[in-house]
């Protein structure tokens, strides 16, 4: 890959709409993940099959992470956070299929994902505190902080985009450059590093989404929050 990472290659056009490569890969991943989950969860059993056990393990781990990070019951947030994590993970590792470029290595996919988080933060914030209560959080700790808080809301979304894009794209880019210089076997350690980066970035994206949502919830659920912390203390 020596072309500009900011340009997209059009695969085919649907009438006036040009369908680019990341869109095709994204839909393929969505079909794969959604279809796979449907297939596995169609016949749920008390004595799970291997696939069902693996999925249960994943869901359980996600629930544990949400409980640890947000200190609330994970049920309302699991669909969003879990989907974000699984999709970004799959997207970051999709270059393991030869000829496929990860859709997260393009700015547009990351912008869409960050936009989902941006809207979800507002949605969960308003649902937990009401419109007035959510808007009041911008004036914390004092009214002087309103512009700063507004700017922060935008910049952290922007940094979500740039972080994911930069990490994934730079990995793809470096491998492309090394491959064009030396070819066989030398890029393999870099590829292994890329796998690690992809997994860590998926994790970080979802953790940051959790942190932002938890920040919007604030102290809205004090009973759950206190229960969570005391439970933690007991465990310690």
């Amino acid at each position, binding site marked *: 890959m020596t072309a500009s*990472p*900011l340009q997209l290659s059009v695969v085919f056009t649907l009438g006036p709409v040009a369908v680019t490569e990341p869109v095709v890969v994204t839909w393929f991943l969505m079909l794969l993940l959604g279809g796979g989950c449907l297939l596995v969860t169609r016949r749920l059993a008390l004595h799970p099959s291997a696939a069902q056990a693996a999925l249960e393990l994943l869901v359980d781990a996600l629930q544990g*992470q949400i409980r640890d990070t947000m200190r609330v019951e994970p049920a309302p947030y699991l669909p969003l956070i879990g989907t974000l994590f699984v999709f970004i993970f799959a997207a970051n590792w999709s270059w393991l299929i030869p000829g496929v470029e990860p859709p997260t290595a393009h700015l547009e996919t990351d912008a869409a994902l960050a936009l989902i988080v941006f809207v979800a933060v507002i949605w969960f914030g308003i649902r937990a505190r009401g419109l007035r209560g959510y808007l009041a959080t911008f004036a914390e700790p004092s009214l002087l902080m309103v512009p700063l808080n507004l700017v922060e809301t935008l910049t952290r979304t922007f940094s979500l985009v*740039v*972080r994911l894009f*930069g990490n994934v794209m730079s990995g793809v880019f470096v491998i492309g450059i090394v491959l064009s210089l030396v070819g066989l076997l030398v890029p393999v350690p870099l590829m292994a590093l890329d796998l690690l980066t992809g997994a*860590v970035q998926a994790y970080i994206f979802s953790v940051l989404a959790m*942190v932002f949502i938890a920040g919007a919830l604030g102290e809205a659920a004090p009973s759950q929050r206190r229960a969570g912390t005391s439970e933690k203390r007991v465990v*310690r």
Partner: protein
Amino acid sequence: MNLNQPINLIQIASILGAAIAVSFGAIGPALGEGRAVAAAMDAIARQPEAANTLSRTLFVGLAMIETMAIYCLVIALLLLFANPFAH
């Protein structure tokens, strides 16, 4: 890029700017990440039972710090591939 035509000053400046942005932009985050990891190691050595929480916080913090270097990378790429002055 045609090598026969005289080299554009803006291209030279862009390439230099990209190299400087990445190289100098990597210094600060590298120092910061080193400090963060050292502090986390210290904390884990003191309290091994808190390693889970610590490493999660460490990862998120490292990602935050790393973003600064990634910004520089994006600036460099903009200079190289999407330079508004080059055309």
